[in-house]
């Protein structure tokens, strides 16, 4: 047999053949790896190396494709690169011409998020009708969060400022990392068995991976199952987690969640003071109206020992008056301060102050009815008269009608 001369190829032919082979036999493909040695010269192209434990592959992302991307590639980022293999002939380097780049973990997580979101939405878990109302002033606030995180510090600071007298119960849990969702779910269930009116589920900002436990089905169902309202404050304002969607109320940050849960006691105090003033004024109006109907008689009256019945009435009025002034020194002082210029009138609004101005309250001795008309006090009727510092038992001599004052 004769020796055949081997075909000799030029370098260009080899490289060209290799490139044709890539195109015909491999085409476009997805490759996973970590970005190393990322360069972004002013040309707008990006050059990097895709590495894994076993090898590395040069990659080029040209300006046109780079511009279409939604995210910024970074050194060290794990990515999925879609493109064509080719040999850059001038240098003989194998490279990947990248058409599309995706962050690896992020893509999978985002997809999982979207799928879970759709599934739970279809079940109605996010419905507004499901959401429980929040208490205006909780007797105790529950907090599910990391015991050592900034979120807890924020919550404690906000509640200290707004309602320091409202007790707090913390159910500590990990808020990131594998298995954290089980702990969070257990903490939620546990705290709901205690005496709390509202639960804050909070954690500080982090990456999508960090927040992942709050995007799990187990945490979503744990929130949905609670019979106590849940306010979620997970991550930064822009992060919306599944937990946020299921919760009864959602806040952009842990501090905001605390503000929603915690009443501002100063505001409540002002409301109370306002009601107090109206209460006193309205009562005074009643007394003033009754006063207009008093028969002011300077005729002959005979004093008798006070009746037990009248004494009981007097005790009641005195007790109310005392309660007015002696609620507790601090409380009354604060209420007085709140009423400002009107505070001096507090005493004058007491019904007893009316009596101090010379008016008397006249009742029939037999049934205690207030005397308003002559018919209430015919001649001979026994009356009990309460004046500022005396009880007077009297018998009617005469009574005559007067027009309305």
């Amino acid at each position, binding site marked *: 047999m004769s020796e055949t001369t081997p075909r000799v190829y030029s370098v260009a032919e080899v490289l060209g053949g290799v490139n044709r082979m890539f195109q015909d036999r491999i085409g476009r493909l997805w490759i996973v790896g970590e970005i190393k040695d990322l360069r972004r010269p002013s040309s707008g192209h990006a050059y990097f190396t895709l590495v894994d434990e076993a090898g590395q592959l040069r990659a080029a992302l040209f300006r046109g494709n780079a511009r279409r991307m939604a995210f910024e590639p970074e050194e060290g980022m794990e990515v999925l690169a879609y493109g064509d293999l080719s040999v850059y002939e001038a240098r003989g380097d194998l490279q990947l011409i990248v058409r599309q780049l995706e962050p690896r973990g992020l893509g999978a997580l985002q997809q999982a998020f979207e799928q879970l979101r759709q599934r739970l939405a279809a079940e109605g878990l996010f419905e507004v009708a499901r959401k429980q109302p929040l*208490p*205006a*002033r909780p*007797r105790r606030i529950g907090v599910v969060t990391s*015991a*050592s995180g900034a979120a807890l*510090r924020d919550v*404690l600071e906000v509640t*200290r400022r707004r309602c*320091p*007298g409202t*007790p*707090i*119960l*913390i*159910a*500590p849990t990990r808020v990131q990392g594998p298995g954290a969702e089980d702990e969070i779910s257990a*903490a939620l269930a*546990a*705290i709901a*068995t*205690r005496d709390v009116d509202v639960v804050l589920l909070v954690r500080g900002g982090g990456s999508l991976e960090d927040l992942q436990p709050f995007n799990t089905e187990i945490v979503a169902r744990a929130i949905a199952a609670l019979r106590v309202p849940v306010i979620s404050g997970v991550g930064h304002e822009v992060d919306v987690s599944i937990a946020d969607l299921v919760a009864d109320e959602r806040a952009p940050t842990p501090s905001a969640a605390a503000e929603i849960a915690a009443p501002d*006691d100063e505001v*409540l*105090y002002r*409301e*109370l003071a306002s*009601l*107090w003033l*109206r*209460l006193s004024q*309205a*009562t005074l*109006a*009643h*007394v003033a*109206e*009754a006063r207009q109907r008093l028969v002011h008689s300077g005729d002959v009256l005979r004093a008798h020992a006070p009746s037990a*019945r009248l004494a*009981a009435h007097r*005790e*009641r*009025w005195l*007790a*109310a008056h005392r*309660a*007015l002034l002696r*609620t*507790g020194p*601090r*409380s009354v002082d*604060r*209420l007085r301060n709140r009423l400002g210029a009107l505070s001096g009138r507090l005493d004058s609004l007491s*019904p007893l102050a009316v009596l101090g101005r010379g008016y008397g309250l006249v009742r029939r001795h037999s049934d*205690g009815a*207030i005397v308003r008309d002559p018919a209430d006090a015919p001649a001979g009727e026994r009356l009990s008269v309460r004046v500022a510092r005396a009880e007077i038992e009297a018998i009617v001599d005469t009574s005559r009608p007067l027009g309305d004052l």
Partner: protein
Amino acid sequence: MGETRRGKQKKAEAKVELGFEEALGQLEGIVEELEDGDLPLEEALAVFEKGVGLTRNCAERLEETERRIEVLVAEGETLVERPFEAEE
């Protein structure tokens, strides 16, 4: 007429159990009742007394400034509440 001391005490205890929101709500109701102006003096004073009690109740709760922060811990099989020590 006239309440016995025990009756008054029981009423006071019932007020302590009343939630803050409810107490405030009742106070608002009383104020409106008085402002409507139709009550005889006797009733007005009775309602006023009740209003004073409710105001005291609410004011005392708002006066509370002592903080109570606790943490839920597992001790064996049970959950207990312990005072919370903030980490620095």
